[in-house]
């Protein structure tokens, strides 16, 4: 039987879940606050570990929602959501109109925000000109512009700082953001391809190369590109008189403090719960876990189910995820929602 499902957030998870639910002949309305779908995927040029173009995945996802006849509404702002017995009334503004839709289920795919690096005062982001984030660097990659220091020269040394805004009591985000280590290795390789004469240094606490082919990428970065990995967390960054950045770190494996000047310092920023998640969470009464991301009904087997019956999750709004995991999670959410909507007994399984 055809049901109406509203999906909030047209990022990777929202789009793929919409595609799968649409392909099951349900009426899917996909709401997006930006003027285009794709979320953060639009900001990544090449994806780890294969270094394939992110826009290929974006096209794949867009083709899906077209084939599945998903009703995508961009520039849509949700005003409020009210529960009405077994359904939800979603009130949103779109093209200067206010619209009410009654939905049988809601899928929340509000994703993540990147960590605001100005909060790590000791790294001087927003103060020293040659300190940038991994997101800033990726943007430079997408524009195809040359990588230059603030003064306009090609950098001879670039440093990457791991764990910025993650695994850090001081900024209130104690969890690991999962994808930053491999992003650092990816961007290090990309820099060496663009600027072979540039020396690249990565300052890490641990190298979290958990995924398939990640370890090979790490080895390749050392073997073929000569990237130097120094185990030690950067304590402070200062500006030299010529504008280059002086960093202080303990070379833990040498058991001695080390200082080094780099022309550009790239901060590998982590994921934090998004503002969109907070807003929708308040409207629907969704519980969050200890790290601020949405709490799922069970961490092993019910990761798409929320504390509100009829409201489901997919993607990074429940925890940091890779693009691969997000797509898988979205399809799982679609299947779960479909079983819920037909009152299938497999949906009645409980876990304590």
């Amino acid at each position, binding site marked *: 039987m055809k049901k109406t499902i509203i999906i909030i957030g047209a990022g990777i998870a929202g789009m793929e879940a919409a595609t799968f639910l649409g392909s099951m002949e349900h009426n899917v309305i996909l709401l997006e606050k930006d003027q285009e779908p794709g979320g953060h995927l639009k900001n990544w040029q090449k994806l780890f570990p294969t270094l394939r173009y992110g826009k290929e995945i974006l096209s794949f996802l867009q083709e899906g929602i077209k084939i599945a006849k998903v009703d995508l509404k961009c520039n849509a702002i949700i005003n409020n959501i009210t529960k009405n017995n077994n359904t939800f009334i979603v009130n949103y503004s779109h093209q200067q109109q206010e619209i009410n839709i009654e939905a049988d289920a809601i899928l929340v795919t509000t994703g993540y925000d990147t960590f605001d690096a100005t909060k790590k005062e000791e790294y001087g982001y927003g103060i020293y000109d040659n300190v940038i984030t991994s997101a800033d660097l990726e943007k430079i990659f997408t524009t195809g512009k040359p990588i230059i220091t603030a003064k306009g020269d090609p950098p001879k040394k670039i440093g990457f700082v791991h764990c910025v805004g993650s695994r850090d009591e001081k900024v209130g985000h104690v969890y690991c953001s999962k994808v930053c280590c491999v992003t650092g290795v990816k961007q290090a390789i990309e820099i060496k391809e663009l600027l072979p004469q540039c020396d690249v240094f990565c300052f890490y606490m641990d190298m979290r190369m958990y995924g398939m082919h990640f370890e090979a990428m790490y*080895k390749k970065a050392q*073997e073929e590109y000569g990237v130097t990995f120094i185990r030690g967390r950067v304590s402070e960054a200062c500006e030299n008189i010529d504008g280059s950045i002086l960093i202080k770190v303990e*070379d833990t494996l040498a058991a*001695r*403090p*080390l200082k*080094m000047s780099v022309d550009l310092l790239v901060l590998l920023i982590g994921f934090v719960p998004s503002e969109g998640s907070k807003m929708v969470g308040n409207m629907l009464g969704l519980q969050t876990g200890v790290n601020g991301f949405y709490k799922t009904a069970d961490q092993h087997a019910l990761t798409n189910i929320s504390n509100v019956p009829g409201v489901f999750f997919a993607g990074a709004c429940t925890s940091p995820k890779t693009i691969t995991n997000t797509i898988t999670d979205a399809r799982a959410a679609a299947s779960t929602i479909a079983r819920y909507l037909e009152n299938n007994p497999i949906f009645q399984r409980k876990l304590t």
Partner: protein
Amino acid sequence: MSNFFGYQIHNDRQINFDNNDLYIIKYVDSLEPTLKTCISCGTCTATCTATQFTNFNLRKLITMLRRGENNIKEEINKCMLCGKCSLVCPRGVNTRNVILAIKKTINYFNL
């Protein structure tokens, strides 16, 4: 340094990477390229015969060379060339050949 105040100015222990010359490690890398994939895990040092009874530490020595701290001439002679380190390296670094390469490098640069 003069000691007439009753104390001497302490030396700076900080590795000043900007001022260090990496010529030794670069030459060693050229003689044994697998060394570039070393991740300083310490498995070599854990099994090393010399480490059990002297302060010889291959992991530390290679890390120091990579930072440009080049005073390794005396240290490298403590290795017995038993080859145990090569058996256990997870990255497949030919560590025994690294030792021989370091000795060759010392001769090459007349250290």
